């Protein structure tokens, strides 16, 4: 399997990245902070006031290292794309599938099947780890309800029907989510999902992790030559990475939700690391953000067995593998898209 390479997260404000041969050179206030060979990197993610020379952008493009820019608070701004990733035949195949109602429904169903199965595992793991926790009945109820929705997925109706089922499953899952938070209950709770902006600590943490995941999924899609903007479950909307959001659905429970719960329940992040702004919007402080980035990196190194490939891979490679399987489905090598299943 492809190697999971490091992501370089640059959070130091005023940092400047330049190319030195095959090495990324990071300077802050004219002082060299880091030199790292490009072949050790899979991705470079810059937060806030970080600048890059055009030559380092070129090197990233040439070596398939994704380079992206976010605001300090983790809002995506831009990604640098090199010349190699424009695969016209694959993209055409993707667009043809996206225009076909039946395929759209089938693919959306696969993704939702993955999402329901993985969300349910998050709930089941919580019951296993905290057998006597508050809300056991609610969690058990949600597990049962998700199984019933899964039964409906035996049939495929229209894409709108699939979207409806997805919404229903998400509601059931999030209704039980607050009970999965077992530590620091005064500081971390979950009433509903708020995004723009996140209005409480848990939502701020989830939003940040979802941003990191979206970036990984979008660059995995671009890496195999797919267009991250043209989705199936998500309708096209200019500026929205529809296909990246589609693939994320099945990966969120494992790569983001479960990690957020661990960080809170094990007190790796604390309430005081979250700042409530004048509008009610919650943002994380620098130290917390670094802690989360670090935990996310470590989480990606966990080894799992991919149920469809029957191969051991690191969790961080799952977006890449799923993007590849999707590409192979679009080009006609597979009879469907096998979603990632966590067990």
């Amino acid at each position, binding site marked *: 399997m*492809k190697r999971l390479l490091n992501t370089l997260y640059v959070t130091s404000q005023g940092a400047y990245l330049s190319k030195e041969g095959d090495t990324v050179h990071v300077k802050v206030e004219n002082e060299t902070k880091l030199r790292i060979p490009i072949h050790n990197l899979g991705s470079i993610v810059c937060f806030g006031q970080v600048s890059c020379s055009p030559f380092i952008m070129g090197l990233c493009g040439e070596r398939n290292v994704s380079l992206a820019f976010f605001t300090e608070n983790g809002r995506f701004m831009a990604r640098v794309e090199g010349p190699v990733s424009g*695969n016209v035949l*694959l993209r055409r195949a993707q667009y043809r599938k996206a225009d076909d109602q039946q395929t759209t429904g089938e693919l959306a169903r696969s993704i939702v099947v993955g999402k329901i199965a993985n969300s349910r595992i998050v709930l089941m793991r919580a019951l296993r780890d905290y057998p006597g926790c508050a809300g056991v009945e609610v969690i058990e109820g949600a597990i049962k309800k998700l199984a019933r929705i*899964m039964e409906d997925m035996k049939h495929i109706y229209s894409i709108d029907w699939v979207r409806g089922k997805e919404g229903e499953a998400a509601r059931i899952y999030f209704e039980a989510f607050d009970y999965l938070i077992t530590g620091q209950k005064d500081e971390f709770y979950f009433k509903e999902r708020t995004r723009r902006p996140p209005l409480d600590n848990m939502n701020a943490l989830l939003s940040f992790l979802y941003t990191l995941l979206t970036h990984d999924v979008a660059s995995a899609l671009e890496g195999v030559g797919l267009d991250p903007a043209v989705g199936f479950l998500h309708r096209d909307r200019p500026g929205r990475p529809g296909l990246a959001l589609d693939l994320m659905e099945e990966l969120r429970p494992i790569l983001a939700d479960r990690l957020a719960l661990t960080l809170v329940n094990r007190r790796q992040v604390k309430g005081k690391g979250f700042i409530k702004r004048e509008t009610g919007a919650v943002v994380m402080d620098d130290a917390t953000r670094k802690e989360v980035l670090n935990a996310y990196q470590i989480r990606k190194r966990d080894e799992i067995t991919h149920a469809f*490939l029957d191969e051991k891979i690191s969790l961080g490679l799952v977006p890449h593998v799923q993007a590849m399987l999707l590409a*192979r489905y679009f080009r006609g*090598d*597979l009879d469907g898209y*096998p979603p990632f299943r966590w*067990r």
Partner: protein
Amino acid sequence: MYTEDELLPVSALQHLVFCKRQWALIHLEQVWEENVLTIEGKQMHEKTDEIEREVRGDVITVRGLHIRSYKYGLVGKADVVEFIRISNKETLEGVSIKGQEGLWRPMPVEYKHGKPKTDICDEIQLCAQAMCLEEMLAVSIPRGALFYGKPRRRSAIDFTKRLRERTEEAAVDLHRMTIEQKTPEAQFEKKCLSCSLLKLCLPKTAGSGKSAKAYILQIIKEVSGGEDVVL
């Protein structure tokens, strides 16, 4: 005769002869996994790009020569072409070189990292270079050489009638498959293990008839039946 627009890379012949699917993944789908081998190969080629022409007694070594053939529809670059001074003025194997006296016999030399391959793909690539040179220089080239990095050894390749036919067939296939734009199905073979695209091709998964539909239905069945087990 092909037009300039229709010319295809000589290097593609080597991919095509090694595996039609590998060729399609690289040239149609532009899937490319840089691994240690391809990077080493690239560095080896970059090195050969440095000097353009070197004269040493009876041998002139020219590097990075642009080549093409309208007859076979090929275009590319020869790593190294050696021009060896010949005394016989009657032969069709010599060309004159600007600034140099006498006639010189061209001989393409292709550099490959790694070990000699068991199949014929490198020979075909070399032969195609020779066929391009023959058309451009109006000579006949009897042999070339392959240089392998491991062991550092050069082997002479005779451009036999059989090899020329195989090369021509490969060039015809290359043009046909480029127009068809179809990626052949994956089929797992022993040679897959030495392919740099193994993990992008997924021959064991994509070519095994493994059904994604069945896999999805299995998940639905297990989860809705409450059968999935948390390990």
